């Protein structure tokens, strides 16, 4: 049994601010059709897809067991279908387990989220908190991130100007990504004058409400050539969960990301990520997170995030050429979006934003209050 898993094909729709014209079923089905066309995979019980992993969130879908309405559009009728209501990047880890354990040799992995459907994303994320102690205080992902932002920015010398630079760059990069959400180009002054949502996070520092869906086909190394001439290999995965209650952890410590990335590096045999990895996609839900996660995965020095930005670290390490999560991917799906970008770059299919000679790439994602949970995937050509 080989210790690498093949990612054979990816599919996505364009990230949109409001996909008013489609149900999430329509969004998913578009991705499903694309995977079928690209790979000609079947649902044969011996040779085809026997198991589908889906990623969705009950609260955003406004139904419990949110996968019950999508069985048909992901081809799961009379097949296994397992839902994950976690950051989508964990779906890659789960698909790897299914394949490397020998239980399945082909996995279809689909996900969707329509953030625009709900009245307020902040109301939804309020529900992720403890109902007795934290919800009543009004905690949501935004204002809790703001607490972390303060702690981290102080520790690492990240300034308001740095944040503005990150936002402006993200928007510029997204212009070269045809699947990125269409956002207005802004300059640093506009960013610094945008409304303060929860100090220090301003409106333009925070990822906008977005609708999106994706699909991926994964399989064993042995069968990869049946579905593509150009498979990309997933060689490392690590994830780590930190404390649920904010007071239990040092918000600026990056503990869970350091832990997750070191596990992924170990699995992929990476000693020095700065030298060995050519491209990084980090899930920056908010601008401050980009240098913070860069520290976490080891491409910026600990406590030196501000300086790293000034020294051109973002471009030097090819970070978030897709525009990043900051330009707009729905909650839960940031990790899948990062992995899809790595796949396209490794295959040389990233169009205008293509970096030459990418051999190894890293996708990172986080989920939960102040990035409680972290996961990292290493992909290779």
């Amino acid at each position, binding site marked *: 049994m080989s210790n690498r898993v093949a990612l054979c094909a990816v599919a996505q729709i364009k990230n949109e601010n409001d*996909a008013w*014209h489609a*149900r999430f079923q329509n969004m998913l089905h578009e991705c499903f059709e694309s995977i*079928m066309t690209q790979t000609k995979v079947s*649902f044969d019980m011996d040779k085809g897809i026997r198991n589908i992993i889906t990623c969705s969130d009950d609260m955003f879908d*406004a139904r419990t067991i949110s996968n019950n309405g999508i069985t*048909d559009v992901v081809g799961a009728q009379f097949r296994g279908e397992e839902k994950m209501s976690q950051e989508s990047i964990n779906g890659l880890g789960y698909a790897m387990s299914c394949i490397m354990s020998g239980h399945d040799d082909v996995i279809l992995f689909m996900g969707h989220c329509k953030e625009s459907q*709900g009245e307020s994303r902040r*109301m939804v994320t309020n*529900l992720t908190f403890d109902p007795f102690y934290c919800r009543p205080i009004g905690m949501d992902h935004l204002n809790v991130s703001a607490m972390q932002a303060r702690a981290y920015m102080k520790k690492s010398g990240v300034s308001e100007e740095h944040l503005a630079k990150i936002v402006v760059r993200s928007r510029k990069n997204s212009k070269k990504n045809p699947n990125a959400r269409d956002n207005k180009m802004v300059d640093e002054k506009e960013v610094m004058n945008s409304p303060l949502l929860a100090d220090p996070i301003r409106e333009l520092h925070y990822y906008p409400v977005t609708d999106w869906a994706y699909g991926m086909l994964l399989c064993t190394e042995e069968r990869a050539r049946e579905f593509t001439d150009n498979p990309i290999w997933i060689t490392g995965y690590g994830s780590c969960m930190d404390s649920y209650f904010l007071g239990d952890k040092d918000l600026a410590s990056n503990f869970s990301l350091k832990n997750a990335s070191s596990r992924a590096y170990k699995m992929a045999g990476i000693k020095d990520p700065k030298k060995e990895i050519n491209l990084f996609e980090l899930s920056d839900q908010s601008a401050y997170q980009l240098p913070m996660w860069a520290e976490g995965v080891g491409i910026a020095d600990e406590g030196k995030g501000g300086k790293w930005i000034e020294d051109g670290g973002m471009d030097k390490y090819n970070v978030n050429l897709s525009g990043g999560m900051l330009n707009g991917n729905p909650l839960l799906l940031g990790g899948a979006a990062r992995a899809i970008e790595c796949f396209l770059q490794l295959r040389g299919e990233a169009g205008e934003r293509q970096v030459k000679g990418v051999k190894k790439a890293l996708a990172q994602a986080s989920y939960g209050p102040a990035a409680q949970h972290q996961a990292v995937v290493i992909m290779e050509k």
Partner: protein
Amino acid sequence: MTEYWGVKAEDIFNTMKDRFRVEGAKGVDAVFGYDIEGAGKWKLTVKNDSMEVEKTDDLSGCVTIMKANEENFIGVNIGKVDATNAFMSGKVKLEGDMGTFGKTTKMFKKYVPAKKVMGTGDYIQDMFSTLVARFQPQGASGLDVSITYNIGGEGGGVWTAYIKDGKCELKTGQPDKPTTKLNVNEAKDWVDVMLGKTDPFSLLSAGRASIEGKTEIALKLGEIFAKYAPKIKEFTTKDYILDMFGTLVQRFQPKGAADLDATITYDIGGEGGGKWTAYIKDGKCELKEGQPEKPTTKLCVNEAKDWVDVMLGKTDPFSLLSAGRASIEGQTAIALKLGEIFSKYIPPSSGGEAEKEELLVLKKTISVNQRFATGPIMGRFLNALKEKKIFTNKCPKCGRVHLPAREVCAECRIPATEWLEVGPKGQVRYMEYVYFSSPDPLTGETRETPYGMLNILLDGCIGNDTFAHLVRRDQINLIKNGRNDVAGTRVRPVWNEKRVGSIFDIKYFEIDE
């Protein structure tokens, strides 16, 4: 005819036959007349052990005629007006033989007004008449507001609570601009809310209630006023006695009766009384009516009412004993231990048992408004309903018809691209009788039960291509399910006048004949 204390004059006459006591009428042979102003005249004929009462205009031949107005007559009969005073002051007059008429007082058992079931109007009246008493100054500290309750429908009305300086005053009507105004379309709904049968949020979301002005005051009502508890039917002595002995075995405490082998007889006299014996042995207790030849201990109480007072803690048993209104025969020591043998009697009016408290109560309604897109397929299906058509799609490969329209054929995994019109009539495949209905999650409204939920094989469909909807409520008992080889009841849709592109553009299906 008017009601006083909830009683009409005719109620008293109509119940005379049931209240007649033969032993009180011994030796009486007379006709009595009653002339009740505003109610009419009645004639009572008593002949030894029989009686007749009739409403009549002719009071000739009566030995005595009683004259009174309705209020005094009813008041005297139910004990609200003192009979002697009424007579002395001339409010009740007797013409003829007063001595014989005096015997009527022993001829009838006391009139007890029938307990009325509380209607919506009664509840509303009771809620608002107790509102000021239920006001909680600590929950309203710092408040200077007027809260108007605008309750529509039968039994409704408009009331305003004026709250200021920790005081509350209730007036009917409303000021020009109340701080908060609560509109409830139907009084019945408000009663349900107050009795905890419905939650106010479902009323609001169903559009059956609304709040004007400051919403936050409405959300604080639970703190400003104590919970409304409906009046509990008043217990009579007999009710108490029955309840005490009915709960005696469950109040038995084996710990307090260790090694006890005894029979304890309760001999309770007077109205509501009776004789019961508790047989206690091996840590067990059994209650029987009557008494054994020689009970270990016998407790005699002359009047049931006294015993009720003892059990409710209003009188102490020793004063009854020393006043000679109760006595103990046999072993006195066991009587003194009764408090250990049986746990204290708690009357049902205090809730019967201690109210079970939740360990944790989270008063939060999780609600995030949603706006759903239809996409092209669902949109086409719903739009056709507006045109009174069931227009849906079909798998081009296996021919399966989807109801409702679906993006893909789940089994063939290809888009269902062919569109066709089916029904709208069809035959019932399955029907379910639903007896307990939970609120409609989209509207918060509760359906009336029982109702019938159908799966219909619409004309043009085969196999399991069925469509789910409701059946006309008065026809649920007439529906027959079908199978592939047996036809089910034929049904047709009843369309809504106003169609908006929703499943309820069809109100329900009804039998097509």
